[in-house]
Structures are given as structure tokens and as C-alpha cells.
């Protein structure tokens, strides 16, 4: 029957055209969908602008003791410096909603960055939590490494000592630097998925 044939080919073709990967949670090893984000200077960035470079994402919240642990010990700044010296783009993301702990205006974020001597490329302001939810960011800090082909190669904790005590930074294994080293050596990232630790991201509604 011609009509039924036509109908079914229409069905099949259109149904196949619908096929698209799920975006609910980004699996390690899969491509990161493009999105537009705004930094503390009001500048817009597309994640795809950074294709060809490594990108490190760091979820942060100034008031969180675990974030403080890594900034007071200069551990985060050191990690930022090493990663960016390696040619990586470092985005610190603030997903705290207005009125919640860690929320910052652009100017406040810039002041904080200067005061901390942070070496991040930019601070992304995500008060609506869109970027946070896309990456399923749970904690501050929560770290992500994206390689040159925009594939997510690491997500999880900054290191293997899940404490808020600044004394525990020493001797801890820094997963982000380990991932960067693996990429540099042309290897697959050894530990590509770890449980993040810290305060919860202070999302709004």
C-alpha cells in the first residue's frame, strides 16, 4: 500500500531525526553540550569558544569552610596557576542564588578574586543555577576537567582528603593536577570520577 509505505518512511525518518543524546547528567567521557555563560565582568562566553583548550571548572562559595580550606592554604591558587600555565582555561563558577551564602555581584566577585590572588581565567556568575544543574554540581568545591575536544574527562573532588581542616591539604592527592598530568602525557585520565566533597551548592528555586 503506497500511502502506508509513505507514512511509515515518514515515521521512521522523522523518528530517527529525533535521536539526540540525553543531557540529564553528563557522563564522564562524553561531550559537553555548548552553553553560554556570563562572567563577573559581564562578558559572555560560549563553552565551545574554548574548544582546542583544556577547561577546568571549579564550583565555589566564599563562605564554605571547604572552599576556605583550599584558599587559605593557597592550594586552590597553586592549582589554578599550574593549570593555566599549562594552557588551560580556568572558570570558577558561583551558583549561589541571590540571598544565599556565596552569592556575589560581578564587582564583589572581582574583589574577592583579587583579594585571594586567584589565578582563574574568569569567574562565572550562575545565580539561576543553570550551569550548576547542567553539570549536576553538588558541592563546593566540585571540580570538572574538559579536554581539548570538549570531552568531560574528570569530575569530582579536588583531592582525596575529604576534610574541612586546612592541615589536611598537605599530602593529599590533587585529582585535578593528576588529570592534567595524564592529559599532558597523552594518557587517559586514571581517576576520572570521584565523589565530590564539601558544602552543598546553594541553589535557589
Amino acid at each position, binding site marked *: *500500500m*503506497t*500511502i*502506508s509505505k*509513505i*507514512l*511509515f518512511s*515518514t*515515521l*521512521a*525518518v*522523522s*523518528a*530517527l*531525526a*529525533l*535521536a*539526540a*543524546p*540525553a*543531557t*540529564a547528567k553528563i557522563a*564522564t567521557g562524553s561531550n559537553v553540550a555548548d552553553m553560554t555563560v556570563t562572567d563577573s565582568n559581564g562578558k559572555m562566553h560560549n563553552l565551545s569558544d574554548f574548544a582546542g583548550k583544556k577547561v577546568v571548572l571549579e564550583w565555589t562559595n566564599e*563562605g*564554605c*569552610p571547604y572552599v576556605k580550606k583550599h584558599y587559605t592554604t593557597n592550594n586552590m591558587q597553586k592549582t589554578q596557576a599550574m593549570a593555566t600555565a599549562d594552557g588551560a582555561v580556568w572558570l570558577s563558577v558561583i551558583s549561589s542564588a541571590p540571598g*544565599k*551564602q556565596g552569592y556575589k555581584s560581578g564587582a564583589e566577585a572581582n574583589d574577592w578574586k583579587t583579594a585571594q590572588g586567584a589565578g582563574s581565567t574568569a569567574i562565572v556568575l550562575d545565580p539561576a*543555577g543553570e550551569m550548576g*544543574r547542567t553539570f549536576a554540581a*553538588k*558541592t563546593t568545591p566540585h571540580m570538572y576537567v574538559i579536554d581539548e575536544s570538549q570531552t568531560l574527562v574528570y569530575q*569530582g573532588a579536588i583531592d582525596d582528603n*575529604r*576534610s*574541612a*581542616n586546612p592541615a589536611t591539604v598537605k599530602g593529599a592527592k590533587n585529582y585535578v593536577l593528576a588529570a592534567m598530568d595524564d592529559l599532558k602525557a597523552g594518557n587517559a585520565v586514571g581517576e*576520572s*570520577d*570521584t*565523589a*565530590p*566533597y*564539601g*558544602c*552543598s*551548592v*546553594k*541553589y*535557589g*528555586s
Partner: protein
Amino acid sequence: MRKALRWMEISLRVLILTLLTWLLAMPAFASQSIPVDTGKVTASIVSSHDSVAPGQEFYIALRTELDDHWHTYWRNPGDSGEPVQIDWTLPEGVTAGAIHWPLPRPIPTGPIVNYGFEGTPLFPVKFTVSKDVEPGSVITVISDFYYLVCKDVCIPEQGKVSLPIAVGESIEDIGWRTEIDAALAASPKRGSVQGAITKTGARLDMSFTNLPEGNFSKAYFFPYEQGILGHSDPQIVTRGSDGLRLTTSPDYIWDDPTPKTFDGVLTYEEGGALKGVEVALAVGPALDIGAVAAPKAVIGGVTLWTAIFGAFIGGLILNLMPCVFPVISIKALSIAKSAHGERAKVKREAWLYTAGVVATFMLLALIIIALKAGGSEIGWGFQLQSPKIVAALSVLLFVVGLNLLGVFEFGSSLQNTGSDLTQKSGAAGSFFTGALAVIVATPCTAPLMGPAVGYAFTAPVILTLLVFLALAIGFALPFLLIAYVPKLLSRLPKPGPWMVRFKEILAFPMFAAAITGIWILTQQAGANGAFIALCAMLAFGFAIWLFKRKGALGKALGALSILAAIALPLTVTASDASIVVTSGKTNAEAWSSARVAELQAEGRPIFVDFTAAWCVTCKANEIAVLNKSKTQKLFKDTNTAFLVADWTNKDDVIAAELAKYGRAGVPLYLVYNNKSVSPAILPQVLSHDVIRDAIAGE
């Protein structure tokens, strides 16, 4: 009264102790250390004994009184946080064991779920005094403790307290002994419960057997380790006659070679109190939990046999749903026509119809399998999420309507010689009716079909085909029965001129269905989409007129027109400004898992309506129940939030959420009451009473 007395007692003890320590500068013996206020928590260590004998075992517990609404964390803190930690400094001859953890509770904050404690949790630890410790001496136990305490913000707090205990005669402190014993009794222990954990794609099933007495309707599993399951994903309870299954989603640990077992705590209720048991989950095939009880409220997973049975009965009932009724009527009419004549012909037609139904269902199953293999999140009725298909279907329904009215006849194509398409006695006619019936049936979901189709969407390929086959057989069965049971056949009305009238009347449900298609299209593709589909109808109408004319030019133009009518629907694209179907539902807001968590944190009951504009069953429920003032009043009186998840267009987040509940399509109705983290799943055909009971948690 007892509490007040205890407080007086504590205050007095503290006062006297402080005075004694200061004034006499010598060890004082008691069973509670001086409490320290670390900020949001007041902490002390308490002992089951005032004085202990050499060689004895006793307990010392860290006692923490948390400010209201602040919480500390269990050994696995969940999505964020850090566990309570205690370091002991002990004299020689005294050893301390591990913490006997209290039962955790899930604590949701926004989209994040933590495992922890509120109120006054007690952390008992077993101590052993060596036989060699001299009677008359004093052992001083020093506790360095640390905890992260959170409400909307987190504060790490720590403290250090010491407790001197005399060695000599064993003397209990009845008050603390009782409190410590209660905490030890509540702390989960390894029981006889057997457990298994099974990962199937994006689904994680935990099955438990040898369960103790108790109510498992709100059972929850807390793993000791991180990375096993998504802490913030609900755990769907399925109770079997011999056990229990919790269905949730896996986390990252499964990417690597995994250990053989995972330990954790299963919590449940007994006599209104929360209980817990430690279970080792063996990685591997699920345990047989026996027959699954009738789905009063909660049902997640289904077995192969219940899926096949559900599909078969669901397929049978699907014949009575409004979507297919007009198409089926045409078939019935055609059978009635020959019912009183050639029996062989009727049988042949019934089989051809069945073949059309089965082939179409199988084709649908294969498309689904192919798309799923390609990583797409799709579900029942997925093809209707494409505005191209909705447009094509609307045009097709319009054409069938014209055909029924007798405007034109199919046959040796459009040459006025054959009989019309669906009434045609030839093989193609019967086969096509079967195919058409299946296509128009997809916007409807019959009772029992939901879990069965949901199962089919997650099952291995061969089982998917099996479930769809059962659905197809159930769907086609009525016609086979008519053909093979002579009594039924003779009951059909005798053919006559009424059949022509009836056939013409049936054109109008077809037009109505086409109009519904256009309405759906306006939501998916805006006015432009609807315009294109209507133009396609115009082109088809024009083609019919041209074909009735003589001459090659007319035929050629007609063919062009037909091509246009077929090609136009393919140009329809989804518009960005698609409308959310919340219209007609007062106080409805859009669904998101974050919003659910937020409302749960507020302690409000929530009704979630997973729906789509093309879902006829959803619309029926809206008219019959959801939009009724009685139901609206119920939501208002119980302060129930009404969330709508609109699946009219393709949406992977909603598809993933449906999959969590073992479903592949809409409708799905969930009720979260404030008695449990996991929602109750309501039947697909709603009633006011079912909603009321679910909100009340009955």
C-alpha cells in the same frame, strides 16, 4: 518532668564539677564530661558507668544536642557534607572500638540530598579496660571530636572534652546507661536479610529477602560508600510476597571493576518507629522477591510475565479507548458486511488485520530499539513528539475522513475503479486498517499498559519484542474471536443501506481527530506549523478534484499536488515558543526535580502530572478528575502543590524521570506526601479518592 529533673541534675553536676575541679584541682569522677558549646551544637561525652572494674567492657558516647533545623552527617554524608568524627586519647590498658552509628535520615536541600541527623544524636563507642589496670587508679578518657553542622550554610565545629573514670567496683549510671542502651538497640546490626544489587543500563535495582517484621512501604537504603547510587534520586519501593525491591539510579562506581558486595543500612518502620538493619548487597542477579502485590500506590519494576500479561490485557482494553474506536468501527463494519456470507473471507480478513497490527507494533518496537541503541531518551507515543509526524497524521486522518464520506475512493489507486481503502476486501485493505488502528492508538494508554510498556522500553531487545507482541495479540484478539466464534458473528447486525450512513458518520470522528492533531501542532510548532498542515490538506483536496478530471495534464498536476501534500508536513519544525499545557489547571507550575525537593523541604504535599497535549488518556483524566472543582478544592485544602511536567515535545529530563518509575510514557501521576521521600505512583485512570488517599499517605 523527667527531662527537667535531668537538666537540673546535669546543671548541678556541671556546677559541682567545675567548682571541684577549680577549687580542689584534683580529679572528679562522674559519668558526663563538662558539656561544651561549639556554636550550633552542645556536646559532651557520657559514660554507661561511674566506675569500672578491671577487665570490664563499657560504653562511652558522644552526645550532641543540635540547634533546631541544623544537622550533622552520617558515615556516608550523601551528596555533600562530612561525617561526625571522634579521636580518643586513652591511657594505657584502655581501648576504644568504632562508632555505633545512629539511623540516618535523608535530608533534602534544593536538588541535593544528604544523610544525617537532627535533634540529639548519640554516638556510642565500646571501651575495654584491661585486667592489668590497678583498682583505685583513675582512667581519663579524652575525646577530640569534629563535625560539620549545616542548615542553609555549613560550619565545621570541634571540641575537646575529658572524663575521668574511677577503676574499682563496677557501678552503672542508670540514666546514661538507659540512654546508651537505647542508642545501641537502635543502631543497625547485621541481620538475616539477604540483599542483591543489579545494574541494568541507567537503572539500579536493590532486592532484599528474609525481611524482618515491619512496614516497608517507605523503605530506604543508605549505602556506606559513595558512588553506588544517586543520593538525590528517589528510591522506588516494590513490595513482593517474599521480599522487597528498591529501584533508583546508579552512580559512577559502576564504570570501574566493582567489588563483590556493597554494605549499607536498610531502614523501615515498625510500630511507627524507624528501624534499620545492616545488609550486604551482593553484586549480581536480583533476588526473587515473589509475587508483587497489587499496585495500590507504589509499583516500580515489573517482571517479564506481569509485563506480558499487562500488555495483553492492556492491548485488549485499548480497543475501547477513544483513539482507536472509529478505526475499529470501520473494520467491524467491513466484517459485518460479509458476516452473513462467506465465513472463509471473514477469517482471512481477521488474520490480515491481525498481521497488520502485529507488523506495525513490531515495526514500532524496532524503531524504538534502534533509537534507544542510539542513546535517545524516548517513550510510548514518542513519534507524536515530532511535529512532522503529528502534521502527517492529521493529514492522513483528514484523507481517511474524506474517503469515508465517499468524496473519493482508493482502489487501483485513485482511478475510480476499486472500492474504498479500508472497506476493500483485498489483503491490503485489512492489513492497512490494522496498521492505521495501531498508529492512531498510540496517543492512548490503557490501564495496565503503563508498567508493561515501561518494562518493554528497558528490557533486552528480545523481551521488548515479546511484550509488544503480547500487546499486538491483545489488540487484535476481538476480531479473531468474531471470525472464529460463529455465535458472535451471527449477532452482528445484518448488512443493509444503514452501513453506508454509518460509514459516513464515522468520517466525523476522523475529522475531529484531525482537528485534535492541528491543535497539538499549534502547541508544538505554533501557527506556522498548523498553517503548513492545513495547506497540505488543501493540496490533497485539490489533488482529488484534479484526478477526477480527464486528461494527462490533470493527472500530472494531481500527482504534483499529492507530492506537495506529503512533503509539506515534513517541513514543519518545532517552534521555540512552545506552550506549556498548564492551561485549565489552576495554580499549576512547571515541574523540575529541584522544585520538588524545595517543596518537600517546605513540607508541602506535591502532585506531579506528567502529561502531553497528544496524550488522550491525560486529557480524559483532566476532564474527569483533575479539573473538577472538588479535586481543586482538595489540593487547596491540603496545600498540595500541583506540578506539571509537559512531555508534548521531546524532553530528555522528563523521559529520564519517567524511566525512574519504570515508565516509558505519559500519563504518570505522582504524589509526594510529607511522610516519605519517595512518591506514591497513582493509577493511570485517576479518581478523586485515589488522590485524596495518596495525599493523606494511606
